[in-house]
């Protein structure tokens, strides 16, 4: 599998007049191949959404600095001129966003929002575009698609809106699809359907999918490989099985341990990760997770751990990873 998309040491800084810079993303590297689904997991504020927006070139121009490299099919997206990037977006690179209601233009019809992509990138118009739009809606599982074309976002249910957004995103069979929390705003039952839909599309079209989420259950469901992010950097990277069965980073184990399990005793206390995401220190000179880490060593406060290969099966950024035996106890089979 050739690497389709490679992100290398991508930092994103937000600057504001009179205030210190905010480093939303501190240097992220990961890659995705065709047909592969890669997960980007982290809490809110970990920088996962910002990473994807930076890749797509959707961050505001002013007050934002992006560094590093984001290679797509041999070209560095970060160095492309604006109109070249605009041509790629929607056609080869596509994104699905979190809240389907606010992500849709409320005053124009669903049909128009689909056909405009077809018009722009596939040169279709009029009846041809509408027919294709109806077909796309059907593919994503929206019943009675021809009628839906004329309807407006507020007339559709949450699940249908998200499907419509997915239809818009895959209309031109993109090679890379980024889904930013596609199921967070939806009911649990709909979540599963949407994930199935994404999985099906990916298999059919060989799309590379980057799935951004804070929900480990989602990750376990469809990701082939997983990147765990904390405070703007990746702290653990492994394939699904390895991550869930043998998590080595204290943050990852903490996440897994904090999820209540159906088969555990009812009176077992919950084990949240101590502290809060704001108890963090910059990555420059230390491990950002150190203030909350139960396995903290002195070196964790003085030296940033590097993302290093660990046993050939994962990348790990930690001075004192969880020992194998302990991690097996915590690890769980992914929820299906």
């Amino acid at each position, binding site marked *: 599998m050739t690497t389709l998309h490679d992100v290398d040491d991508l930092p994103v800084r937000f600057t504001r007049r009179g205030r210190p810079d905010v480093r939303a993303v501190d240097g992220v590297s990961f890659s995705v191949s065709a047909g592969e689904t890669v997960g980007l997991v982290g809490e809110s504020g970990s920088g996962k959404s910002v990473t994807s927006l930076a890749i797509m070139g959707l961050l505001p121009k002013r007050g934002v600095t992006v560094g590093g490299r984001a290679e797509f099919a041999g070209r560095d997206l970060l160095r492309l001129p604006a109109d070249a990037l605009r041509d790629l977006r929607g056609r080869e690179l*596509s994104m699905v966003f979190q809240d389907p209601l606010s992500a849709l233009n*409320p*005053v124009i*019809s669903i049909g128009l929002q689909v056909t405009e992509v077809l018009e722009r990138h596939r040169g279709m118009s009029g009846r041809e575009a509408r027919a294709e739009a109806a077909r796309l809606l059907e593919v994503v599982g929206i019943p009675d698609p021809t009628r839906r074309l004329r309807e407006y976002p507020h007339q559709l249910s949450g699940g249908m809106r998200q499907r419509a957004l997915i239809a818009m995103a895959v209309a031109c069979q993109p090679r890379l699809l980024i889904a930013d929390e596609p199921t967070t705003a939806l009911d649990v039952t709909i979540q599963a359907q949407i994930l199935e839909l994404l999985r099906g599309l990916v298999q059919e079209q060989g799309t590379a999918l980057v799935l951004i989420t804070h929900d480990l259950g989602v990750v376990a469901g469809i990701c082939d490989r997983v990147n765990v992010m904390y405070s703007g950097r990746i702290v653990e990277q492994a394939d699904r099985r390895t991550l869930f069965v043998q998590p080595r980073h204290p943050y990852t184990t903490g996440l897994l341990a904090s999820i209540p399990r159906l088969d555990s005793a009812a009176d077992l206390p919950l084990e949240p990760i101590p502290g809060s995401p704001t108890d963090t220190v910059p990555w420059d000179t230390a491990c950002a997770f150190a203030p909350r880490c139960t396995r903290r060593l002195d070196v964790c406060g003085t030296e940033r751990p590097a993302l290093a290969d660990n046993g050939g099966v994962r990348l790990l950024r930690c001075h004192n990873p969880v020992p194998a035996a302990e991690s097996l106890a915590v690890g769980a089979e992914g929820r299906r």
Partner: protein
Amino acid sequence: MLRFAVRRLLLLVPILFGLSLALFVWLRALPGGPAAALLGERNTAAAQAQIRSLYGLDQPVWVQYWKFLKRAVRLDFGTSISTHRTVTSEFFTRFPATIELTLAALIFAIGVGVPLGYFAARRHGTFLDNASVIGSLLGVTIPVFFLAFLFKYLLAGGVFSVLPDSGRLDPRLIATHPTNFYVLDGLLTREYDASWDALKHLILPGLALGTIPLAIIVRITRAAVLDVVHEDYVRTAEAKGLSVATVRRRHILRNALLPVSTTIGLQTGLLLSGAILTETVFAFPGVGKFVADAISARDYPVLQGFVLIIATVYVLVNLLVDLSYGLIDPRVRLR
């Protein structure tokens, strides 16, 4: 949607009813009674008695009001004291002039205001943006007659003399006026120089009248665009790789102009009242100037009739704007 329209139309009735009642009572409450008002300086007891019987002012108030209403519905508002023609005919003779002026002002305000507001918002924080904010603040504070004076002085007299300073048409120009809309008339009768001249006469008063609405429109457009630009659906549109023009037109402006269109109704009110002052400064023979003249001439039938008609027009325009909002925003339409 239809129900919405009908409901709003029905609301019109009590409003106009209340307005006519208020006006009626108001005028009857004049010191000395309406008879004294009608007579003005020629007020003697005998004349008053005569007027009273002539106008049926000795009958009970509700009878008077009923008669007034009956005539109002037939658009009979009596006769002007100063010109001795019917109030209605005076109104409709002059209304086209005011409509032309108001349209000119509105076209100016929207045509310049929306793009300016849009670009100010897109270039947030730059010189253009700050200048627009300050400009629009000044615009709403400056009284319309100041602007009228300023333009008149600068471009029609004191400094440059490029544009006419009064009237609708050069008095030396002979032209026919089938519709009384001078610009249109010239086009209809192929007297193009008349059209052009009428247009020239509209420029200065139009600019003066339209500046305040311009300031308001810039303000609202800018604020609306600033809001909309941060909306998720604009980001989606960008993510789809749509062209800049498409994003701007279909996604940003379509939504940003919603709040702007709701103020058009308000602007009409500003334009109508501003017309009174502007027409006076430019001696523009429209409804506004006639109202100003009627004030000094104490021409109460004219005041009463004109005010009622203008109010009706204003309420109707607001109604139309409300209805059109339903057309533009499908969330309102399809409840």
